């Protein structure tokens, strides 16, 4: 009985979930929705990048905040990661975060990613809030003042607390279409090593209970993430979680979270440039060099 570690993937899964990222979550609030510019979420999630941009522009034209962005470094990085993965493509994502390929950073494709990231910033500007935490930013969506946010599924709790239902007042999507990469990260329960027989039995019981399909589904319905195992009955879960469960079953869609690919030191240095780029007049060309330096 060595150190027993049970991976809990219940926390947050990729695009739909934490590490934030991948998952532009979308509201279908009164202003935009009823104006007809932006119909129901379940049926009308943006299926292509072009649809996404046109949706953002429409929301902005209606006077709302197109893209709500939390003012913290973690969320800025999350949005960048989402843009890189879903607009730059998985190859570029892997080359950058996985191989730390300096040529990938110098490529025109990477510059395009930075440009698109900056374009989101423009859509975000009217609603910018200083150092706004993720929750206050999510509140903009909950209260129908903003269109999209990149966030993990933990934010779903904010919607549920406000009495909103996934698929009705808000929706979520992980990239474009049914083959989009799905970024995965998770948290881990580590139980202390012990030689006490009773404690060991208790630990085993706990591990068994928290990983059982029923617990996983019940817990994740509350928390907003997805079960750690594919053999669960997800029919009771909301559409966001169901999309996540389906995505997780396809190994081709699974993409590791950048924090699994990059050392924290380097990851932090990249984030320094990202946040500087987002918040200042730095041009994509100017950002490419230090990002490459960081990698």
């Amino acid at each position: 009985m060595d150190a027993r570690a049970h991976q809990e993937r219940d926390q947050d899964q990729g695009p739909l979930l934490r590490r934030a990222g991948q998952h532009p979550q979308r509201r279908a609030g009164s202003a935009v929705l009823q104006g007809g510019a932006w119909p129901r979420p379940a049926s009308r999630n943006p299926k292509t990048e072009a649809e996404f941009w046109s949706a953002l522009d429409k929301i902005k034209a209606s006077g709302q905040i197109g893209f709500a962005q939390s003012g913290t470094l973690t969320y800025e990085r999350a949005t960048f990661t989402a843009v890189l993965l879903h607009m730059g493509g998985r190859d570029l994502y892997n080359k950058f975060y996985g191989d730390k390929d300096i040529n990938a950073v110098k490529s025109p494709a990477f510059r395009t990613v930075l440009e698109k990231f900056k374009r989101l910033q423009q859509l975000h500007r009217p609603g910018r809030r200083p150092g706004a935490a993720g929750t206050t930013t999510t509140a903009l969506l909950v209260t129908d003042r903003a269109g999209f946010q990149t966030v993990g599924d933990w934010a779903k709790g904010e919607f549920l607390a406000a009495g909103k239902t996934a698929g009705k007042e808000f929706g979520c999507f992980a990239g474009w279409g049914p083959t989009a990469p799905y970024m995965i990260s998770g948290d881990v329960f580590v139980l202390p090593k012990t030689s006490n027989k009773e404690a060991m039995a208790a630990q085993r019981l706990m591990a068994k209970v928290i990983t059982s399909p029923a617990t996983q589904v019940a817990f994740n319905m509350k928390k907003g993430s997805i079960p750690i195992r594919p053999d669960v009955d997800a029919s009771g879960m909301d559409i966001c979680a169901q999309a996540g469960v389906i995505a997780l079953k396809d190994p081709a869609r699974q993409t590791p979270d950048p924090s699994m690919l990059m050392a924290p030191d380097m990851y932090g240095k990249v984030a320094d440039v990202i946040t500087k780029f987002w918040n200042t007049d730095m041009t994509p060309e100017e950002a490419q060099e230090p990002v490459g330096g960081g990698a």
Partner: protein
Amino acid sequence: MKQPRKGRGRLGQRIGRCSPMGATVLIAYVASILWTIRISLSNSKMLPRADWAGMTQYVNLFIVRPLDHRHDQHEPVRFVLHRGRAGAGIPAGGFHRPESAARRRLPYRCILYSFSISFVACGVIWQWMFNPALGIQRSLRNWGWESARFDWIATQDMAIYCIVICVLWHSAGLVMAILLAGLRGVDEEQWKAARIEGIPRWRYYLSIVLPQLGPAFGTATVLLAVSVVKLYDAVVAMTNGGPGDATDVPTKFIMDNLFERQNIGLASAASATMLVTVVIIVAPFLYARSRAKPRHT
């Protein structure tokens, strides 16, 4: 020459007399400083390592990191920050009326206690006030001034001044307390004598009181200068270094590298550098004080 040796002797005596205190100083301060310096000379990343890397971490800190704009950006601002804060105490002198010692107590007490609020609480409150969606801007708009705009904290250029205002407010109380204590040390007989001589009040303060406040000013300046170097909690509570890196401070760099970025070596190098900064600030003050002593005795 004699002075330092005497000082050391006295320190030794003191440590001998109260050994728990001596042990605390040795272990908590001296040993951890040495440990930090040792780590800063290694390749430590997430965990301390015992290898030797020479000055690599320091080279990284100062030269190799083109990404860290942290160290070069706000020097002028920091200067203003700490000058401004040293100046914050001066109003306390304005409140002081030598002829009404008894009447002055109550109102000041409220001002003095801003220092008793934690930096974090203070930062959060000011952050709310600066937040355009919650604070001053929102209030002005609700009162009818629809175009009112006060979003400093969300802008690159002005965010640091929001921190300055918060920290100024916070430490004003301390500086006032120090200066009031200094003022109370001024013998009121001098005021009577000055009145008899027909000396105007401004002249009395400028030529008689102010010179006697030298030590109080010195203490306040050193305390504030050191607190500027180690400023951390207020920044974390107000902006967390943002927007972008507009309000990044050296301590935050250290904490980021120590924990989130798992680069203990670099964090230690930065800490050691910060210690040097503090010594540079404090040393002249201590030197001046040690020189001044013989005059009093």
